[in-house]
């Protein structure tokens, strides 16, 4: 059976969920071979093996942390040369897309980004994309070279499928470009203890209607009652009420949770671009004409300062 390379997104050996989703998708088109780079790469083997990786190729070097993107492209290219895979799958993060693009160019292949589904086809893997702010669904494939496809988080359910997960060291020679862009400083983001926005099953968001950073506490309280991540519209972010890393939309994160709750958000096209593929959509907005109501499964026309705390209280009461 053909092998499929899966690029592993991990933090010091802790594999992030979108990678496990990729392993599920990879099994539809072949046998997953994972590539885990940098510090802790070898520690990923157990979890990757549990989720279907037959092999885990690792390589650690300081270049991965000290320089931007290119060292990882060099390594992935070495893995392609070693494995001759049927496809290469990469998580659709900002960095993942850049790595995938440069790899595709080097190996003479096409690239598809932000796939939301993947299946085997007669002429290679067929990717589903959700485009134009999720108003169209396209099916595409790569017609030349080894398909390089980036996949959005929450595109597949994680399934366990025990495989060998045999670790072997990848041999990598860094290119002249590898040290071109130096990372001279790094400030890690503080963890809030809440789920990752892009990976969360439930996202509770606040917009301009929240009207102040201190009021975001009621959005957070609702999120915590549901074990959800907190999102924000750009208007709320630009006003300085919530960090940009929590922005949902075209220039923020795109999320696709089971449940999205929009509070005090009008539903501008650029916001919708980042949340329209959510399975169930709920909105609280005092304006019955707000465009967000065109998308909802359930909407409450009302003041969020009344509705949201009442909802939180009710949820907490039911949890008893």
């Amino acid at each position, binding site marked *: 059976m053909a092998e499929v390379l899966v690029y592993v997104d991990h933090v010091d050996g802790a594999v992030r969920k979108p990678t496990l989703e990729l392993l599920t998708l990879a099994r539809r088109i072949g046998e997953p071979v994972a590539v885990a780079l940098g510090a802790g790469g070898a520690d990923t083997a157990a979890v990757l093996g549990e989720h279907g990786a037959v092999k885990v190729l690792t390589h650690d070097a300081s270049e991965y942390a000290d320089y931007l993107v290119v060292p990882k492209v060099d390594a992935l290219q070495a893995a392609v040369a070693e494995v001759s895979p049927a496809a290469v799958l990469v998580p659709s993060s900002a*960095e993942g897309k850049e790595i995938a693009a*440069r790899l595709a160019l080097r190996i003479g292949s*096409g690239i598809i980004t932000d796939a939301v589904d993947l299946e085997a086809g007669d002429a290679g893997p067929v990717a589903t994309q959700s485009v134009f702010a999720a108003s169209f669904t396209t*099916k595409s*494939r790569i017609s030349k070279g080894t398909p390089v496809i980036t996949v959005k988080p929450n595109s597949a359910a994680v399934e366990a499928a025990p495989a060998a997960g045999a670790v072997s060291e990848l041999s990598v020679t860094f290119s002249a470009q590898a040290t071109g*862009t130096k990372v001279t400083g790094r400030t*890690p983001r503080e963890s809030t203890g809440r789920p990752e926005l892009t990976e969360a099953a439930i996202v509770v968001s606040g917009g301009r209607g929240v009207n102040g950073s201190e009021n975001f506490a009621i959005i957070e309280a609702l999120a915590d009652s549901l074990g959800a991540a907190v999102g924000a519209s750009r208007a709320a972010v630009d006003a300085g009420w919530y960090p940009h890393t929590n922005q949902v939309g075209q220039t923020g994160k795109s999320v696709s949770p089971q449940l999205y709750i929009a509070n005090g958000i009008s539903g501008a096209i650029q916001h919708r671009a980042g949340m329209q593929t959510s399975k169930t959509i709920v909105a609280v907005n005092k304006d019955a004409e707000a465009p967000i109501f065109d998308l909802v499964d359930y909407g409450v*026309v009302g003041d969020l300062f009344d509705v949201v705390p009442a909802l939180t209280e009710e949820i907490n009461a*039911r949890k008893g």
Partner: protein
Amino acid sequence: MSLRIVVTVKYVPDATGDRHFADDLTVDRDDVDGLLSELDEYAVEQALQISENSDDDVEVTVLTVGPEDAKDALRKALSMGADKAVHVEDDDLHGTDALGTSLVLAKAIEKAGYDLVISGMASTDGTMGVVPALLAERLGVPQVTLLSEVSVEDGTVRGRRDGDAASEQLEASLPAVVSVTDQSGEARYPSFKGIMAAKKKPVQAWDLSDLDLEAGQVGLEGAYTVVDSATERPARTAGTIVKDEGEGGKQLAEFLASQKFI
């Protein structure tokens, strides 16, 4: 010393219009008005700021690959303050994919001459966010991408990239390719004077042969990807909408419970 900046700007269908696909599954550009991709305004803005903050002699060229109407995007960038423009236009470009686009842009950037390329973080139609990285790969220069802060001094570009796990400070020597996010600072509005001045600024037109490229390398024929189908997402079935008369929170909790979220 002089610094030559090339800003890549894309002409895209207005996102607030009713965007759709033509029969050949390329973007239908006739039905919806086009404009300068809003995220490229941030790239133009940063180029102008670098120019204004520099003691060097800085020249800002804006470059687009697109159909005839794409001149509108160039005019907008010129009226913001860019010095000159390059328009790559050729019927054979119809249907070009990201790899092809980056090929044409790289050839044009080399022909124009550059020390620094500045792009937007992503277009507002394809939204791939890959062209700047592809340009760096093709040009063989460092990529310093997705910056929310950028500065250029003594042949070095520095910036801040805010990622998921960390915020990073980056540094590279020129020549380099930079892309900037919409966190890099509001783009200026063209002034009346700027709009008038733009009318006199040069717009150079190049086609594929000017760039030593052949039809088969670009367009649908040269594309590495094939779109097999594009279907409009079915309208969502109308949801339940209630008015809060004191029970809104409870009713919503009821709905969430019925859907097994609580």
